[in-house]
Structures are given as C-alpha cells and as structure tokens.
C-alpha cells in the first residue's frame, strides 16, 4: 500500500499515459484535452461569432466525460491514494524559488504564492492566472493540440508537425522560466 501512496516513478507513469492514449484510440477517438476548450466555446454559443465553433458539440460529449473522469481521478489520487504532498525537487530548483520569495516549496501541488486566494485576488496574481490560461488556450488551438495531442499522441504516431509543436512548447517554456518569471517574482 505504501508503494501506492508514494509518488509513482516516471518509468511507471509514462507508459501508463501511453495506455490512456491508446485506449482512447482504441475507442475510436483521440487523446486531446485542449479540444474540450473549443467544445466549451461551442456550448456557450460561440458558433454565432465564428464558424470555427460551429461544431456539433454532442459529438464531443465523450471527451467531456474524459474531463469529468479526470477531475474525479484527481480527487481520488490526491485525497485517497497519496501521503502528504512533499515533492522531492532538485535543491537548485528550491534555491531559485526561495530567491523568488517562495516558501513551503513542494508541499502542495501548486505554489500558494500563485494559487491561494490571497494571491489570486491581487492584481499580479490574477494577471498570472488569466494571462497564463489565455496563452495556453490560444496557443494550443493555434498549434492544433497540447501536450496530450502533440507530445504524446502526435510523437507516438511519428508526426513531424507534432515535433515542431513540442519544440515550440519548449522555446516558450524556456523563455518564460528563464527570462520572464524572474522578472515577475
């Protein structure tokens, strides 16, 4: 049981993610989490504003069910299958975050300095979440997929476009982590 409660190693979780991808392909669908954002837009009536959202969202219901399951999965894993969160980060990473003024590093899945309500209701905090979310939603549709659709499904199917997208993900992530985050914190 303790093995379950501990964090699972990458060589277990990586292949399990590939199985999630393969199951969805086997069910005649595809592994693409960001497509749901388009479905949300279509459900909210965005089809009136752009043909891009004129999709029959009932055909996407299966993917919303995956999302629904993922929320439940997160709940089960966090509250029933985990010891207290204590992410074993590289000491250099911790040092860097301390220089940002972060505390209790790795004691929660998301940093309280960004995600607790005090932070969220500050101008800086709300801008981080809104701009971060916006870029993810805009970028993923522009690139035609996110980590699940490109990095896992696309690369598994040896798609060059997905490799280009993943390179793009990394260029963006490196710029944010090395140049922009140090300016923000």
């Amino acid at each position: 049981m303790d093995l379950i409660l501990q964090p699972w190693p990458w060589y277990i979780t990586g292949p399990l993610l590939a199985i999630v991808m393969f199951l969805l392909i086997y069910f005649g669908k595809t592994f693409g989490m960001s497509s749901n954002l388009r479905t949300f837009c279509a459900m909210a009536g965005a089809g009136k504003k752009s043909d891009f959202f004129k999709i029959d969202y009932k055909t996407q219901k299966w993917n919303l069910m995956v999302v629904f399951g993922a929320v439940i999965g997160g709940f089960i894993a966090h509250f029933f299958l985990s010891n207290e969160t204590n992410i074993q980060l590289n000491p250099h990473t911790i040092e860097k975050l301390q220089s940002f003024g972060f505390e209790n590093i790795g004691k929660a899945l998301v940093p309280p300095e960004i995600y607790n309500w005090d932070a969220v209701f500050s101008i800086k905090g709300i801008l981080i979440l809104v701009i971060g979310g916006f870029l993810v939603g805009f970028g993923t549709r522009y690139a035609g997929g996110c980590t699940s659709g490109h990095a896992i499904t696309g690369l598994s199917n040896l798609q060059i476009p997905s490799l280009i997208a993943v390179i793009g993900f990394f260029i963006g992530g490196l710029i944010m982590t090395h140049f922009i985050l140090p300016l923000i914190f």
Partner: protein
Amino acid sequence: MKYLKFILTGIFFGIVLVKSEAVSWYRIFEMFRFESFHMYGIIGSAVITGIILVQIAKRKKIKNIEGVPIHPTPKDKSITRYLLGGLLFGLGWALAGACPGPMYILVGTGAFSMLIVIIAATLGTFVYGLIKNKLPH
C-alpha cells in the same frame, strides 16, 4: 452507459498524472530549468511506449471497437502554426504551470483557483477562433 469507459479512462488519467506529480507547477518549473530528469522520463517513456503500441496496432491491423483499423489522424503539414502556437502555449504552460489535462485534474485535488485558468484558457481558444483567419498558419 456508453460513456462509462470514457469516464473510467479519465479517472485513470487523473490518477496517473497526480501520482506522477506532472500536474505540479514545481515540476514544470524544474523541467524547464533542466534540473530533473523526472518530466523528461515521463514524456519520453510515454512516447516510446506509445510508438510501440501504435506500430503494433498498425502492423497487426488491430481494429478499434467501431471495427475500423487503428490509424491516428495525420496532422496537417505546416511549420508556422506549430512553432508560433507552440511557443505561445509554452509561455502559458510555464507561467500557469498547467496544460489542459492537469487544469481539470487539479480542480479535483482542491485547487479551485485553477477554474480561473480554465476560464481564461476557454477565452483564449475563443479569441483564436475569432481571429484565426488573420493569423499565419
């Protein structure tokens, strides 16, 4: 209950991503600083396993449950949209520390402020839909 298998797959996905810690902002930060192999191990072993599964499915002509041979849809050829879109996505990924799968999963772990990120991401997708014809693809 034809949707049950999708809910179960989602539950499995959520559990695996939480247990891998890949849903953590800290792990994403650490990855982009090249200070841990952890995230590269997850993505790398997922892709290698995925390549093997897809290759087996194609060669053995395994059919999906609808009776159609498994063949993931090829992506359209282009560089601009993947590089530019990917870059914007990467900026947001490293800032919010969550991509679209983990966003939902983290709500389940009690990180309710993630709902703001989800709403903003939906807005981002909406704006893309509005101006997509003006963007280079």
